[in-house]
Structure formats: structure tokens, C-alpha cells
């Protein structure tokens, strides 16, 4: 023990010396002049000709919102790949009733990690990626209100991911730290009683991602309130910034609560407190705290994607967003209502039936603002001049999947139905229609729509359409099969399902599981095409000649971020930039359709 202590001390000492050495190489802090003195502005130093340092240093030290957006995006896509591979393993395992490829413990571990990875390491960061890059451009700000806090918020994420996945790295070493098997909801008493320190690591990682999200949210609120350009008012603030503002407010109220609940769980696990013990708050306390965060989290994840969809659909329908004001109002309404529905996750816990009824009423009420949005998107497209570009296809896919995910949600919000379907695959199918079919699709729509801006290139259209159609078919096959599995009574989370035939129709259940797995294969192929297209077009695609790749000027919808891009292209040509490759996208074809 003392040896370990000594080794750790030496290691930490070395780390600190290394950090100090790196810092002294990078930074001469004697050169700092207090800003109040007026001499600290970059221009007066006489060395600030270039905007950013070169190489890896640029990315490790950047505080530019666009660079940080790119870092968030890269991080989110890596996390999406990790979470996706975990999901694929889950689906492979469930091809046969006894479990096809992996052990039950490992299944539990990847089931836990898949959920946390997709929600906290992919979902929140991919939204932060879009928001960091585009909100300042859309509102005419120079940068975020607090650029350094922005960078801190991002850099908390990589240690968070390493901690959350830490158990997978340490399990093969045989040092007694395995991946957590608590499921993403971390229900007590299970999560208190699992002695594995991997659970602590995961909780700490989750705490760090929560701190990161909170810092980001404060930054977005401050930016949207104080950094708007002179011509951007509350009346003409774009829909994406509205959703980011609402989302940030939700984060501000929800994430600190998750952080506190996690700290209490860590204290219960390590320091013998009794917050969630029977003699303390009881295990229901965790469920209340967790879902008071957890349900707003759903809207934290879905509102900005709705903003992207509301932004993109009009561009390819040739008309303005129908009922802009009502979409903003419905966003705010969802934001407020989202804090009054958490106990619909707990209808079968034996809570007071009168409370249950009130939570049912509020949960069903959320269908109203959601439907307002859905009808507004449909009406925007109605009689419009539709152009089925890839971002538009993903938006239409969003609307379609959101309707299925939403309607199944209305059923689940109803107490008597929930009592039958609770903890079955119906719930899994329902929320995957939202998180993959809607949120995932909107993320793809955003990535394709803004691809020309952040890469200066154009993606390959045919591959992108393959990506859409494989994703659409794969999503619907996989998650519709799950709805059917739920009706058959298949409980969620199980690693195997070799039931007694008297309990459930095993042949049918196996068939639907296999269908869901076929859907997963289709999804995987689609995502491989996406990654190839994304990387290949970015590295080798021809530069875009026009700042208006979507012909937005034609319908007077050339928005601020494309304005910015146009200015950037013009400046690049003016100072003899290397943009001499003026081929249009797709090998000479016009990019608009």
C-alpha cells in the first residue's frame, strides 16, 4: 500500500512538473498586462498577425468558438461510434434466446455504457458543437460571452469519457475495477451495493460531463442575452438560438441537480452516508431526484434538434417557417412543462394514485406544444417547392419518426397502459424513435446542411442519400420491432430471453429480436457510409465555389451564418488564399437540386 502511495506521489509530481514545463514553454506570464491598463489588447503587442498558433497547440489552446465547436463535433462523433458499436454488440447478442456472442456481465456493462455514452457523450456534445459554431454567427456576436469558460467546458469532457469508459480499460488488467453494470438510470440500491470501483469512476465521469454542460449553458445564456448584434432583436432572433436558449435554461436547472444526486450516491458508496438507504431517504429518493433531472434531459436533447429542423425545413420548402411565433411559444411551453412530468417514469412504483393522475395529465399536455411544432413543420412544407436534398430528407425523416415516437409516448403517459407496458421493449422502442429517429436525424441534417461552412467543401450527394435511406429503413425496422416486442411482453435490459413458452411466445419474440438486429446491421452500414463520405469529402472534396450552395438567396433565406461564410470566402480570394480549386460539388454538377 505504501509502495503504491509512493508511486502515485512520484507520478503526480512528475505530471505537475510536466505541466509547469509545458506552460512555461507556451506562456510568458511576465508579459501579461492587466487589461485595465489598456495595453493588453492583442494588437498592441505587435505579434498578433496570425489568428491562431499552429499544429496541435492550436487545438489544445483554442478559445475560438468555431474551433471549440469543431472539437465538440469530433468528440461527439467518436462517442457516437463507440456507443454505436456497443449497441451493435447488444443487437448481435440478442439474435438467439440464449445470447449469441457475449457474457451476461459484459452485456450489462455495454448496456449501461451505451445509454450513458449516447446521451451524455454524443447527444449533449453534438448539440454543443452546432451551438458553439453557429449561435455566435447567427446572432452576430464576435465570440461566446466567456471564451475561456467555453474551452474549460469542452476540456472537461475527455476526462469524463475516459472515466465513464474506464472500467472497460481496467477490467482486463485484473485489478478489480470493472465496467459499471448499473444501467444508465443508476437506480439504488443496486448502484449503492455494487462494490466495483468502476461504478465510482463512471459516476465521477458523469459528474464532470454535468459540470461541463452547466458551464456551457451559462455561457450560451450570457451570449444570447448580451452579445447579440445591433440588428438582432428578440423579435427576429432565429429559431435555433431560441431553442438553445431554452435548452440552456433547462440545463441550468436540471444538471446541477443530477450533479448533487450523484455526489450523494458517491458519498453513500464510499463514506457510509445513508441518503438512499432505507433508514435515510430510501431508494425512491434517487428515482425522484434522477427523473427530476432525467425528464428535462429528454427536452434538453430534443429542443435544439427541433430548432435545427425548424431552421432547415423552410430553406428547402422555398417558404418561411409557418407560425414562427407559435414554434417559439411551444418551445418555451415544453421547457416549462418538462419539469412537471418526471414521475411518469415511476407510475409502477406504488406511488399515490392521485399524484399519478396529475403527472399523467401534465405528461399528456406536453403533446400539445409538440403537436404544434409537428403541424407547423408539415404546414411549412405544404404546397412548398420542396427540394429533397440530404439535410431536407433527414428533416422529413425526423418529422416522421418524431410522430411515431411521440404518439407511442402519449400511450405510455397514460397510467393504465403504462402499467402493462412499463419496463418492456415498447418503452425502448418509443424512446429510440426519439433519440435515434429524431435527435440523431436532426444531428445529421445539421451536419449536412452546414457541411460547406465548416469544411469549405461539399459532401458526396449519392453517398449521403444512401446514408439517409439506410438510416431511415434501419431505424424503423429496429425500433418498430421493439414496439412489437413490447406488446409481446419482452422485458427490457435482459441479456438472454430463453423463457418458458407459457410466459411468452418465444418463437415470435426471437423473430422480432432478429428483425431488430437486421435493422441494426442496416444502420451500421449506413453509418459506415456516413463516416467515409464525411472524412473523404472533407479531405479530398473540391472546394465550394459559391457561398450559397443551397440557393438560399433565391427565396430570400440567406441567413447570417452563410453571410459570414460569404465574407470569409471573399477575404480568402482577396488575400490570395489557396482557394484556387473552384470546382463545384459532385465533380462539376451544380450542388442545388
Amino acid at each position, binding site marked *: *500500500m*505504501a509502495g503504491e*502511495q509512493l508511486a*502515485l*506521489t512520484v*507520478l*503526480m509530481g512528475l*505530471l*505537475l512538473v510536466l*505541466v509547469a514545463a*509545458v*506552460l512555461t514553454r*507556451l*506562456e*510568458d*506570464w*511576465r*508579459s*501579461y*498586462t*492587466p*487589461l485595465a491598463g489598456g495595453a*493588453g489588447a*492583442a494588437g498592441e*503587442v*505587435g*505579434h*498578433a498577425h*496570425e*489568428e*491562431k*498558433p499552429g499544429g496541435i*497547440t*492550436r487545438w*489544445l*489552446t*483554442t*478559445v*475560438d468558438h468555431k*474551433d471549440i465547436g469543431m472539437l465538440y463535433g469530433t468528440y461527439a462523433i467518436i462517442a457516437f461510434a463507440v456507443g454505436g458499436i456497443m449497441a451493435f454488440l447488444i443487437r448481435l447478442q440478442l439474435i438467439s434466446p440464449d445470447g449469441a456472442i457475449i457474457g451476461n456481465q459484459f452485456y450489462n456493462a455495454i448496456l449501461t455504457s451505451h445509454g450513458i455514452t449516447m446521451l451524455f457523450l454524443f447527444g449533449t456534445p453534438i448539440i454543443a458543437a452546432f451551438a458553439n459554431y453557429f449561435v455566435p454567427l447567427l446572432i452576430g456576436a464576435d*465570440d461566446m460571452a466567456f*471564451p*475561456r469558460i467555453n*474551452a*474549460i467546458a*469542452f*476540456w*472537461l469532457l475527455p*476526462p*469524463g469519457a475516459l*472515466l465513464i469508459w474506464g472500467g472497460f480499460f481496467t477490467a482486463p488488467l485484473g485489478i478489480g475495477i470493472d465496467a459499471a453494470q448499473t444501467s444508465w438510470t443508476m437506480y439504488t440500491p443496486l448502484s449503492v451495493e455494487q462494490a466495483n470501483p468502476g461504478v*465510482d*469512476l463512471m459516476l*465521477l465521469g458523469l459528474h*464532470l460531463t454535468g*459540470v461541463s454542460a452547466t458551464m456551457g449553458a451559462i455561457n450560451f445564456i450570457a451570449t444570447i442575452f448580451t452579445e447579440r448584434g445591433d440588428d438582432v432583436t428578440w423579435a427576429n432572433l432565429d429559431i435555433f438560438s431560441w431553442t438553445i436558449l431554452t435548452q440552456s435554461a433547462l440545463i441550468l436547472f436540471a444538471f446541477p441537480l443530477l450533479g448533487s444526486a450523484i455526489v450523494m450516491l*458517491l458519498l453513500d458508496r*464510499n*463514506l*457510509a452516508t445513508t441518503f438512499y438507504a432505507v433508514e435515510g431517504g430510501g431508494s425512491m429518493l434517487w428515482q425522484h431526484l434522477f427523473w427530476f433531472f432525467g425528464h428535462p434531459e429528454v427536452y434538453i436533447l430534443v429542443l435544439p434538434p427541433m430548432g435545427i429542423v425548424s431552421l432547415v425545413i423552410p430553406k428547402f420548402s422555398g417558404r418561411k417557417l409557418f407560425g414562427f411565433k407559435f414554434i417559439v411559444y411551444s418551445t418555451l411551453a415544453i421547457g416549462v412543462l418538462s419539469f412537471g412530468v418526471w414521475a411518469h417514469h415511476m407510475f409502477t412504483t406504488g406511488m399515490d394514485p392521485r399524484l399519478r393522475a396529475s403527472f399523467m395529465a401534465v405528461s399528456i399536455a406536453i403533446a400539445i406544444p409538440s403537436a404544434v411544432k409537428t403541424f407547423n413543420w408539415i404546414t411549412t412544407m405544404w404546397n412548398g417547392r420542396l427540394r429533397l436534398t440530404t439535410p431536407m430528407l433527414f428533416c422529413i425523416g425526423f418529422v416522421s419518426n418524431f410522430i411515431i415516437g411521440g404518439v407511442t409516448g402519449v400511450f405510455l403517459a397514460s397510467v393504465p397502459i403504462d402499467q402493462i407496458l412499463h419496463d418492456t421493449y415498447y418503452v425502448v422502442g418509443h424512446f429510440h424513435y426519439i433519440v435515434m429517429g429524431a435527435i440523431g436525424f436532426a444531428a445529421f441534417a445539421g451536419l449536412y446542411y452546414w457541411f460547406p461552412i465548416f469544411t469549405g467543401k461539399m459532401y458526396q450527394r449519392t453517398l449521403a442519400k444512401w446514408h439517409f435511406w439506410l438510416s431511415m429503413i434501419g431505424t424503423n425496422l429496429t425500433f418498430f420491432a421493439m414496439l412489437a416486442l413490447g406488446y409481446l411482453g419482452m422485458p427490457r435490459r435482459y441479456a438472454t430471453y430463453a423463457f418458458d413458452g407459457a410466459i411468452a411466445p418465444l418463437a415470435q419474440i426471437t423473430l422480432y429480436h432478429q428483425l431488430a438486429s437486421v435493422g441494426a446491421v442496416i444502420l451500421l452500414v449506413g453509418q459506415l457510409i456516413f463516416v467515409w463520405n464525411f472524412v473523404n469529402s472533407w479531405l479530398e472534396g473540391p472546394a465550394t465555389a459559391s457561398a450559397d450552395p443551397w440557393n438560399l438567396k433565391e427565396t430570400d433565406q440567406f441567413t447570417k451564418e452563410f453571410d459570414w461564410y460569404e465574407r470569409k470566402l471573399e477575404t480568402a480570394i482577396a488575400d490570395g488564399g489557396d482557394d484556387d480549386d473552384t470546382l463545384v460539388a459532385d465533380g462539376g454538377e451544380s450542388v442545388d437540386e
Partner: protein
Amino acid sequence: MDEQPGLSDQYRMASPWPLFVALGLALSEVGIFMGLFPVAVGGLLLLGGSVSGILRESGYVARPWRTFAQLGGFFALLGVIVVGTQVDLVTAIGTDPLALMGTLLGVVERPSNYAVLGRGMAVVVAGLMMLAAGGTGSLMARSTPQP
């Protein structure tokens, strides 16, 4: 200062500190909660140092060493409060301060034997180190003329 500008003087959109603030926070959380004494102390030092650095860089404070010492004082106080929940400090100092010192040094020697006390002492030790370093730095900075 024009002779040898630092990174964040040369480039308006660069700062070396955020990465280390995040790393410091992550290490101190892991160290404190997992009961790893050296990691907790090192993490808190890194956190305190980089917070002082970033505040200095962005012009919120004029003297980083003083901020470092102040943060150290805050941590030390916080740690003492945690230690105070386990040991009756007032009585112990009044009756036998040497024995108290012995106990606390024993905790530092084998912190993993003590749950709350070990963690509290990690925060105290980190805070005292920062106080000492920050104090010394302040004095040295005062004796050398500012550029």
C-alpha cells in the same frame, strides 16, 4: 514584454489554461472521491495553479501568486472543516496538541486507513502547500521589479 510574448499575447484566440483547469478539476475529483491522497493533492494544486493563471491572463486579478495563496487558504479551511467533523479539534488542541499532530501525520502517512479524515487531510495538505508556495511567490515577486 514585446521581446518574448506568451502564447496568449501572440494569439488573441488562444489560452493554455482551460485544458489544465479541466484536468485539475478532474484529477482532484477522482483523487478525493476515490481516496487517492497524492492524486487529490496534485489535482488541487493543478486546479489552483491554473485558476490563478487564467484569472491573471484574463486580467481579473493582478497578482497570480496572491490568488494562488488565497485559493490555498480556502482549501485549507475547507479541509479543516472536514477534519473537524471527525476529530474534536478544539478539545484536542487544548489538551494535547502534540498527540493531535501525531494523529494527523499518521493520517497523511496512511490516508487509505481513514475514510473521511484521509480525504480531509488531502485537502488541508494541498491548501497548505498552496499557501506556502503562493506566499513565497508573492514575496519574491515583490522583491523583483515588474517588467
